[in-house]
């Protein structure tokens, strides 16, 4: 599978796909997309890279085990839900910054929740795929 063309292409594809996945993630609130799809696309990007360059290369690129993304994502999602408690609102009330940010649009707790979902999905998918291909 590791032909020269695929290998070269995947080196460029990885950042492009990652940026694309973040784009999908961020626009999720307004247009089709969101954390689930974004996370899956990012995971596919890494899997593609692993196919072309070998698993070890991808792991070196990541520097840490993708499994760590799961607790990080879960914590982010949880605290984004918890944050309204500090301003005397019920758990998981949506909070928003008053002014929209450039490019991204409105930023609120829901966005952080979605980022949490994104991270967990990447973590789960990569953990599963990596584990399987390592011990296959």
């Amino acid at each position: 599978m590791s032909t020269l063309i695929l290998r070269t292409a995947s080196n460029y594809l990885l950042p492009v796909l990652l940026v694309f996945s973040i784009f999908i993630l961020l626009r999720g609130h307004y247009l089709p997309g969101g954390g689930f799809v974004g996370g899956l696309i990012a995971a596919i990007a890494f899997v593609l890279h692993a196919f072309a360059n070998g698993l070890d290369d991808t792991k070196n690129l990541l520097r840490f085990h993708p499994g760590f993304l799961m607790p990080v994502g879960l914590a982010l999602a949880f605290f984004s839900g918890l944050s309204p408690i500090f301003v005397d609102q019920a758990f998981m009330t949506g909070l928003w910054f008053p002014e929209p940010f450039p490019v991204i649009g409105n930023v609120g707790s829901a966005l952080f929740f979605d980022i949490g979902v994104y991270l967990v999905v990447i973590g789960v998918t990569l953990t599963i795929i990596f584990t399987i291909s390592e011990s296959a």
Partner: protein
Amino acid sequence: MLTAILLGFLFALFLVFTGKFFRGKMAILSALIPAGLFAYFASFIPKISSGEIISRTYQWVPAFGVDLSFKLDGLSLLFSLMITGIGFLVFAYTASYLRGHKYLDRFYGYLSLFMAAMLGLVLSDNLISMFVFWELTSISSFFLIGFNNTNPASRKSALTALGITGFGGFSLLAGALLLGSISGTYSISEMLSMKEAIAGSEYYILAVVFIFVAAFTKSAQFPFHFWLPGAMKAPTPVSTYLHSATMVKAGIYLLMRFTPVLGDQEFWNTTLIIVGGVTMVYSAVHALFRTDLKGVLAYSTISALGILVFLIGLGSKDAFLAASVFIIVHALYKATLFLVTGIIDHQTGTRDVTKLAGLRKIMMPVAIAGILAAISSAGIPPTVGFLGKELTYEASLHAEAFTVVIVVAIVLTKILLLWAGFVAGIKPFTGKLSEEYTNVKAPDFLMWGPAIILAVLGLIFGIFPMIIESALVKPVVSALGADASEYHLALWHGFNTVLLLSAITIAVGVLLYFLVKPSVKLENKIGKLEFISPKSILEKGTHYFNVFSAFWTNVFQNGYLRNYVTTIVLFLVVLVSYIMFGSSRVVIDHTQLSQVTAYELVVALILIAGVFYTVFTKSRLAAVAAMGVVGLAICLIFVFYSAPDLAMTQFSIDTLTVILFVLVLYRLPKYLTLSDYKMRIRDGVLSAALGTVICLLALQVLAEPTNSEVGDFYAKNAYIMAKGKNVVNVILVDFRGIDTFMEISVLAIAAIGVFGLLKLRLKSTDRSQ
């Protein structure tokens, strides 16, 4: 007050960490807990006897009306004092009885757990919290009965007791919920004011039956009585504490507590009189046929509990007075007798009453305690037992109907109980000491002290009844809803029918004691009738239930996956088609359906072809590829019908699934031809039937009108409330955020599971390779 209840729980927890300390010589220190609690509750006596009621409420689950609310009135005070007072003596007694036992700390842990649960039970004013404490007493008693957990008989008894009382616990919960829904509150105090409304409700009888079952199982009433003799396998301190003085009285407490709410109705009174009457006579007769001291005591305890139920059933002021005095009387003498039995067992190593005699020469103080308790149980003046018996007779004589039957029954019971008390309290100490036991050592003070304290108290209360009169007895009677202010307890009431009955009882009882000696022959006689007792019927029932379950399991849980699937699918097909074709025809409304365009048709055909190829191909890789095609076709369907998010997700997942399969699959063996032609036809027909049913079901549902209220709400408010325009995404991250959070947690768990299955060595299976 909460602290007082929780103290026992805290101490049990504390023991977990400091067990070693309490296992040794310091064990006696744990008796300080019940002693302190006893002093605490005793300090309420003046307030309670002046008619005050102390209540405290701590919120627990206010949304369901469940509070930790406690009420201390005459009734709960009497029980609290009994629980802590006898608790103190039992704790002290245990220190000597189980001295040096390996798990003494554990025993104390269970005991204090039980004490706390029991206190919570009698102080709770909220039915639900009462139920919780009720269950805790069942559970802690399970541990206590099964304390000798290396003995199978002991484990079995513990399980029987747990089964019976647990069943009663369910019944209590059912009764509590029913009463709660009738009256709209779980507070017992508030129910008091709704007596008429509850009695008038159509569910009154049902609620009473539930409460009765709970009380009868706990207080070992016929036909649930048999767990109590079995529970005598427990160490004697447990029998003393749980099975004579406290836990078995929880049922009595429940009945008394509900008397002002549910009582004074014909159904209530008649049932209690009959059940109590049958129990007291039945088990008093049974006591005659026992040779084990504890067996005699167990049956006489059941009989005494029967008397109490019977008295509550009589429902008159006299009866309540008699019941409240008799509770005290019984707690004092029965606990003493149990303690005495425990001492005898501990020192001589036997409880067989036919072998025991003349022990007074060795253990005089124990003999005094035993004889005093026997006299009190016989109701011979000047003990408090006499008071109890007089009041009981008084109440029975004033019964409204069947007076003669009732009086005969109660006198008969009392005669037999006198016999039982004498056998347990006097027989081991009189007569000639057998040579076998001449070298028996005398028990130490910690053992006989508690016994003699209780026995002497019985005497003191008898001579000076005013001590308990205003402090304990009258508040109980008023808590039961009767007024007893003008009545005075006294030993002498002049010559009347009651005195005559007393004289007859004592004379006949003493005569019986000299005529009938407990013997193995008698015990064998009753053994022949064992097969019709409720116990053996229940055991047979359980046995057949087990046989049936085994059969059932073999039929349905046979370990073949496809048999499970076949069964489920078959039932599904039969049931759904029965309902579908039984009710109406499938109607397809063509006007509402959308047209099929050419490219949709192509996609559908590709999909169908993909499915068939997946099923019928011989190559695994081809099957996976075809499955990928199916997924992509579904993805296109999502695109056509306005679900871009779904299409994107389906596409990514489809890709990943195929990758996953390819990674794993080529390590797995090739398809084998494992099924023959016939089986495939059979399975094909079955799955085709399911497919048809599902297809028709979908069409049927499509013909029904829809309700998109929820979707409309989300769509309307997506931007207004959540500032998002992609409604699907807004639902996921905002409206139903907690669901999504749970979902990603589940995903993470699945990933960890995969990681664990592959990375961690499964040691046992690897070794067996």
